[in-house]
């Protein structure tokens, strides 16, 4: 080590650089040009904590392979490319040492094309070192989230060299969560300490903090300590054991809460997809095989709306982010209109012939798929999430992704909306009348034809909104409907045809069961088990969870 340091010092002295100039930049330039890994290691470690933005930028670039070396007869000058690129995709070269552009003999800036340059070598070892150096830079990152991630990761290195950096940061840190992660990182690093007192205190601290990130480290130390009790001492074993137990029980609660949330979210997806079908199939008795394709219409409407907003506001910012609200409204209207045309053009002739309506709507579904494949292409289209729907809340170490929370809220909204429509409006009254007894309703002056049309359009509109909503979770392509149609029918039949609240309970049941079973059985077996359970259930209660008695359905 000493030898190496001398070597470094010698290199530094041998160059015509005065002591004052021996800055992080000089250090970095030497590291880039060096061909000796040990020397590079030392030089990069020297850089830790340097407050020069140029150093940080150049290190990032080096790691990413965009530092280049300008060679003349006997000198090598590492440089970066300037961010601005001219019409011939040329960029100026910026010297790392002083941030000045590289110039030719006449003093004109030299121009480079990225594709002609070979990046300076950075072996995986060096890139890893740079990563650590950069992580330590990240302690000062303006974004608290990045800061937290970096600190957590550094803590897991259990490198005592970082401790002073953590402590220095704790003193000036203001963000609570970051302070928390700093305390965690310090404790985790101290777990590896040789001093039994420090170690035990650190273990206890982690146990108190319910630190999930360190549980595997604590388990490790517990096993190690049991193997060689002389080295670690009984206090360490006790403390580690207690801490692991405390964290495990905390994690069990977290798992329970997480599973509940995931089940709720899957239920919401199923419900949103199936509610439209609960209206058209459940209430009206139309076996609408094109339900999935109406959802697809909604999803593509969201795609088109997104593109229009992109044209108006550009691809980001508040204006663009509001596209999704407009997309929901637009998809309701467009899908509703499609439903209206479908009802007027096909279904109204088939109310008394359910089997033919099955075939006819299936035909319509194929037609719609092919039509969309023709217009938008066979490949999936990309609907981007507005920024307020990307990311997640973290509550007690359980992730609540924004898009999932939104779907749950949206499911509640449309169920309540549908309930109010059916029970508090005159249209709802008429719908219920027609569904219960069409002939009687017609006798007392309800225009059954018009009510049918409106109901079907409303159901289709709901399906359209579902499609827009699902564009935030899955793929948007011509096959979107096919992925959901089986689940939709499953939920509606399980819930009991003709009962909207049956659909709500059925989707909750299916979603929860699926998520509870999945961690044990895996995604494939979980799904098979749920399907098997539904078949058995329908053997026992063929009419589903909630049986609705009505003349129209019995006839």
């Amino acid at each position, binding site marked *: 080590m000493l030898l190496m340091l001398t070597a470094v010092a010698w290199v530094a002295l041998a160059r015509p650089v005065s002591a004052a100039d021996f800055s992080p930049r000089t250090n970095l330039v030497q590291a880039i040009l060096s061909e000796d890994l040990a020397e590079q290691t030392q030089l990069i470690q020297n850089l830790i904590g340097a407050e020069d933005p140029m150093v940080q930028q150049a290190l990032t670039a080096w790691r990413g392979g965009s530092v280049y070396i300008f060679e003349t007869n006997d000198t090598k000058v590492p440089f970066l490319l300037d961010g601005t690129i001219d019409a011939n995709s040329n960029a100026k070269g910026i010297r790392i040492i002083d941030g000045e552009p590289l110039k030719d003999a006449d003093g004109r800036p030299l121009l480079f094309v990225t594709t002609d340059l070979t990046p300076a070598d950075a072996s995986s070892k060096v890139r890893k070192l740079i990563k650590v150096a950069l992580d330590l830079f990240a302690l000062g990152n303006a974004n608290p989230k990045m800061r937290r991630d970096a600190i957590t990761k550094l803590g897991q290195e259990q490198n005592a060299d970082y401790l002073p950096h953590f402590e220095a940061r704790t003193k000036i840190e203001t963000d609570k969560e970051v302070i928390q992660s700093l305390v965690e990182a310090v404790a985790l690093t101290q777990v590896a300490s040789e001093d039994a007192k420090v170690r035990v205190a650190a273990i206890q601290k982690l146990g108190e903090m319910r630190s999930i990130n360190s549980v595997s480290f604590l388990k490790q130390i517990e096993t190690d300590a049991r193997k060689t009790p002389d080295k670690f001492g009984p206090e360490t074993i006790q403390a580690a054991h207690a801490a692991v137990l405390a964290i495990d029980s905390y994690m069990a609660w977290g798992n329970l809460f997480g599973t509940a949330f*995931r089940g709720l979210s899957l239920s919401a997806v199923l419900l949103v997809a199936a509610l439209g079908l609960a209206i058209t199939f459940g209430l009206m008795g139309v076996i609408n095989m094109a339900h999935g394709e109406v959802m697809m219409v909604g999803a593509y409407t969201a795609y088109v709306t997104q593109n229009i907003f992109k044209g108006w506001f550009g691809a980001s910012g508040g204006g663009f982010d509001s596209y999704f609200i407009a997309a929901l409204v637009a998809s309701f209207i467009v899908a509703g209109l499609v439903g209206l045309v479908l009802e007027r053009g096909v279904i109204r002739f088939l109310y008394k012939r359910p089997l033919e309506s099955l075939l006819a709507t299936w035909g319509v579904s194929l037609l719609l798929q092919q039509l969309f494949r023709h217009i938008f292409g066979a490949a999936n289209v990309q609907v981007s999430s507005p920024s307020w729907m990307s990311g997640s809340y973290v509550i007690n170490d359980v992730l609540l992704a924004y898009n999932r929370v939104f779907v749950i809220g949206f499911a509640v909204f449309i169920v309540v909306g549908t309930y109010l429509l059916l029970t508090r409006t005159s249209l709802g009254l008429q719908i219920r009348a027609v569904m219960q007894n069409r002939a009687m309703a017609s006798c007392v002056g309800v225009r059954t034809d018009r009510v049918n049309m409106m109901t079907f359009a409303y159901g289709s509109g709901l399906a359209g909104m579902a499609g827009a909503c699902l564009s935030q979770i899955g793929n948007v392509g011509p096959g979107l409907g096919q992925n959901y149609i089986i689940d939709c029918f499953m939920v509606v039949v399980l819930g009991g045809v003709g009962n909207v609240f049956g659909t709500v309970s059925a989707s909750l049941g299916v979603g929860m069961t699926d998520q509870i079973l999945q961690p044990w059985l895996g995604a494939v077996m979980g799904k098979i088990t749920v399907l098997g359970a539904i078949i058995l259930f329908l053997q026992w209660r063929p009419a589903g969870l909630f049986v609705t008695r009505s003349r129209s359905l019995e006839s």
Partner: protein
Amino acid sequence: MKSFKQSFLALAAGVVMTLTTHAAETVKVGILHSLSGTMAISETSLKDVLLFTFDEINKSGGVAGKMIEPVIVDPASNWPLFAEKAEQLLAKDKVSVVFGCWTSVSRKSVLPVFERMNGLLFYPVQYEGEELSKNIFYTAEAVNQQAIPSVDYMLAEGKKKFYLLGSDYVYPRTTNKILKQYLKSKGIPDEDIVEIYTPFGHTDYQTIVAAIKKFASAGKACVISTLNGDTNVPFFKEFANAGLTSENCPVVSFSISEDEFRGLPAKDLVGHLGCWTYFMSIKSPENTKFVKDFLGWVKAPKVSGIDYTVSGVDPKGRVTCSPMNLSRMGVYLWKQAVEKAGSFEVDKVRTALIGQKFKGPAGEVTMQENHHLVNNAFIGETLASGQFKIIKTLNGVAGEPFSEKFLGK
């Protein structure tokens, strides 16, 4: 009058001549890729690149002086239909060679047909190995040219925990079985390897991502993904929403190439890794020419030298990718072998193929006795543009279909 008669005769002679030359100097070559159904999205690009390659070869004089005449059939992503169409190509059209298949199940379906009728098939898409037919040449990446180098790279990056996630079918299951053995041989304990499968078209990745998050909480973890096609979208969306990134838990995907990014949002995948024997971003004169010529060709697609109309080529947003490059390599290797053998006979061409070398866009490839290539492998990092930045190159990796050989058992 005389001049009219003369010109008429000349014209007639010309017609006869073109007809005879046409009949005598072409060689029929079959293309067996799905142009409709679920696999059409991927396989159509291979049909395009094959036609492009035929055009290239015909322009420079053909194969042993004969013009390539493509015979395209559409097995429509229907596995039994692959066997029927293969039989049609070999028995009715009497093609000299067939380029085709994407999924392993389609290859398994045509394999008996090629063996029974002694045909010749070139297969260009990464696959699980454990197969060797004397009638098939696998230009595709074997497991030790894609999966093993990726895992090696991850081990070198200091990763200690591996989450093997795949779609539920033969390629992921076999590959993961091999990887598991390999990881164990590298000293990774059982509890640090997780193997999970999801059905095709799976959209709900909440549970799996939550499990990965927990798995990665102690650091040094990575995901090896053999998820297929569009299930990658919900997976990567969920992955990003959970706060996982390529920094705290990188994902290496084996089934996503440049061509797949035409339908995937690349921005959700930035920084995650891919491993192939070719990337569009490779800097070599051969590749620059290949990319430029192909992108030009799709705008006015044709096959020179013969009377043939090309249809169904989408000129928008085209890219090149590894299966496309390997399809093209197959055609050139076949051409060289035919010229060396001086015959189109399958048995002679087969013998001549062994040891053939060709300098392609990704460097030189050599056909080995085990019908697999010696090829360069590359590990690349996904960029927002849907391209890959090459971060590691492995030169001359010899493809080996049987895992017991490279696992050393």
